[in-house]
């Protein structure tokens, strides 16, 4: 077993080698993850904000469920989506199983509760400060959600990044609904799982390091955008 330097070397070797397969796999990973995170934010941000800002019967219960859904086991999500999309399932006719679309659906199911639950908390805190003013100004629910999300955007980015982290690292669900099919639905995490089961531990680790590198780059980009926005915007 070559040491850690060996693994690092291999990782850089892979990157330097610019292997076509690797590029294909990385590309699919990013595509699936980013789309899933975008969809999750489109649903989770307003949902979480609504639960965080409005008082209605059952609100506490919904918060609990949102928090609990952060613990959705990937394999279970994978199976659920699989049963939906399988030929004998209700959505069978769409023939989405074993396509990247299926993987995006599965990841969205996993990530949306995370974004929603974290948004709920952030918005709840912000709303504690704003609610009297909003009530006094008598603004409608929609504008209220909008204002809370907008004024909380710099904190909410962390919620989105948490979702991204979960999605990019996700393997259990995508391998079930995607099938880890070479050149079709194989992504970084499923490749890592495969190389591991082959016993190619160094290669698996090297791929993992590359994946982590990608995550660092994406996070750095987002945070630097955030920073530059903060300097012109209103703390």
């Amino acid at each position, binding site marked *: 077993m070559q040491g850690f330097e060996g693994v690092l070397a291999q990782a850089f070797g892979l990157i330097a080698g610019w292997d076509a397969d690797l590029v294909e796999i990385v590309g699919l990973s990013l595509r699936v993850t980013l789309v899933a995170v975008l969809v999750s934010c489109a649903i989770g941000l307003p949902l979480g904000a609504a639960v965080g800002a409005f008082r209605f019967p059952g609100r506490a219960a919904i918060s609990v469920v949102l928090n609990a859904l952060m613990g959705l086991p990937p394999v279970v999500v994978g199976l659920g989506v699989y049963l939906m999309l399988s030929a004998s399932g209700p959505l069978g006719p769409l023939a989405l199983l074993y396509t990247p679309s299926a993987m995006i659906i599965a990841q969205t199911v996993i990530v949306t509760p995370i974004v929603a639950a974290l948004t709920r908390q952030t918005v709840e805190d912000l709303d504690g400060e*704003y609610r*009297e003013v909003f*009530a*006094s*100004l008598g603004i409608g629910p929609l*504008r209220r959600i909008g*204002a809370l999300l907008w*004024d909380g955007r710099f904190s909410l980015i962390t919620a989105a990044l948490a979702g991204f982290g979960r999605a990019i690292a996700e393997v259990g669900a995508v391998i079930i609904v995607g099938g880890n099919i070479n050149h079709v639905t194989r992504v970084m995490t499923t490749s890592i799982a495969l190389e591991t089961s082959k016993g190619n531990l160094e290669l698996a680790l090297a791929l993992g390091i590359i994946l982590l590198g990608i995550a660092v780059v994406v996070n750095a980009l987002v945070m630097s955008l955030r920073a530059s926005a903060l300097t012109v*915007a*209103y703390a």
Partner: protein
Amino acid sequence: MLEFDAHPNVARLPAPLLEAQDLSLETRGAPLLRQIDQRIRAGRRTVIMGPNGAGKSLLLRVLHGLIAPSRGQVTWQGRPLDRQARSAQAMVFQRPVLLRRSVLGNMRFALAAAGTPRAQRTGFAWQALAEAGLAGLAHRPARVLSGGEQQRLALARALAAEPELLLLDEPTANLDPTSTQAIEARVRAASDSGVSVVMVTHDPAQARRLGEDLIFVHAGQVVETGRAADVLLRPKSPLLAAWIAGDLIADRP
């Protein structure tokens, strides 16, 4: 009850703009407001005075419908206070909360809330800022404004809603004499144009200048009411007398 309401014909008068009926508020046992029966008359300037912690701000919140009383109720033009009644009122909080946006952004938001059509908002906003003497700060983050600037912005924001009733909680506490004069002038102008005003102040001179009706609150109770001039000149309750003499101990038992 204001004594000039004692006359039997009062019943035939139009319902008051805002009325508190047997209002009480408590949190975890602590009584904060106790059995308040009070009428706010339309078109008048009512000042509320009282020691720190008397319950003035809470009363304003209850009248504005932000806090539901533990007992009793508030009626707006005879009907129970509801969300839409509240939109006919505007409040300036003792401690203004501004959005994390520019001064202009805060104005535009308030105008949007007041239903001003998008096209006119920016224009109106600039106008309102100019009137508030904040035009020069339009693009500053609202939250870095100075204390006085924030109070002025908060008042401008409240006026943007063109309310029937203006609830002001110590609106000039952090203002310099000049700004204070300006604000008092604006309040008087608004009131002349028919807006009813309820204003909390600690400054007897200001109460004398602006107040028509006066409500004196102590330890959550309305101790004395009447025409501001009379009450301040010839207080009936020893509490108010002591207060005007400036030696009423504020701390509650």
